[in-house]
């Protein structure tokens, strides 16, 4: 299965999903004009990946989100729901939600999302402070 690589823009994140290593990364800001349309190819890839995925292999999801608008938050929850479903079926899924300690809004957003999920492991990971 091909990797899914989407370059970042000012209002949409960089996406790098690798089926071979089961490593999914999303980095950047998300307030696209139409969140459902932007994430449609991401959903398509993820559904295909999860259908073919070896349930013994750990899926690792790393997120470094600086800003999520409200519609992207909804879409992100739908994305996590797919992962939570395979986790409920026994596949190990680890989500690392990385946040800047001085950006409480993103921490809160991660907490809101993690409360909605049952089976996957959702880690809130504080990123080291940048040296200034």
């Amino acid at each position, binding site marked *: 299965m091909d990797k899914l690589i989407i370059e970042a823009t*000012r*209002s949409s994140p960089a996406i790098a999903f690798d089926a071979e290593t089961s490593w999914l990364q999303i980095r950047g800001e998300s*307030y*696209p*004009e*139409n*969140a*459902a*349309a932007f994430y449609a190819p991401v959903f398509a890839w993820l559904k295909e990946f999860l259908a073919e995925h070896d349930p013994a292999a750990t899926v690792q999801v790393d997120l470094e989100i*600086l*800003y999520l*608008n*409200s*519609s992207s*938050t*909804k*879409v992100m*929850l739908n994305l996590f729901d797919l992962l939570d479903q395979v986790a409920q079926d026994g596949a190990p899924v680890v989500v690392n939600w990385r946040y*800047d300690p*001085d*950006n*409480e*809004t*993103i921490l809160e957003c991660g907490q*809101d999302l993690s*409360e*909605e999920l049952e089976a996957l492991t959702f880690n809130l990971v504080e990123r080291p402070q940048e040296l200034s």
Partner: protein
Amino acid sequence: MKDFDLVRLKDELGERGILISFSGPFSHSIIEELGKVVRNHLENTRLSRTAMMDVFAVYVEQAQNVGNYLRHWEQEPSGERIASSGIVVIARDGERYVVSSGNLMVQIDVAPLVVYLEQLRALDKAGLKALHKQKLRQPLSEAGGGGLGLIEMARKATMPLQYALTTVDAGVFFTLRVVI
């Protein structure tokens, strides 16, 4: 030139603490560009990163709400005045930032919006979080709106959302004011 007094306009913007104001076609690229201006401005202040991102977030939600409503009217033969009625303003008021936006609406859309705003105004932070949780599970509308934007604004605001309705020839002008 009498009716085109930019000095007076600029003075008035200054007196009202207005840092950034935009009125015109709300394309996505304009929303992005203005967002960059907002962020650049706030990065040069002593505002904490959380507060800065809250001002930015409220700006994005307002601008996208206005943009979505206006876009819906672009295709309508009678919708031209609504489609060009949007405005977003970011102002400083002492230690607070105030993000406001406005646009014309048709009467039929006003009542449900007012009911929703009054519902939000009556909720405390815990109530807003509970409603957010409930709305998070509702599907996105075709226009891309999720009905979450106003709740997110209310959660970031330091006082209840404020709004005003002004009757004008072409309909009702809706103004939303969020203090952060």
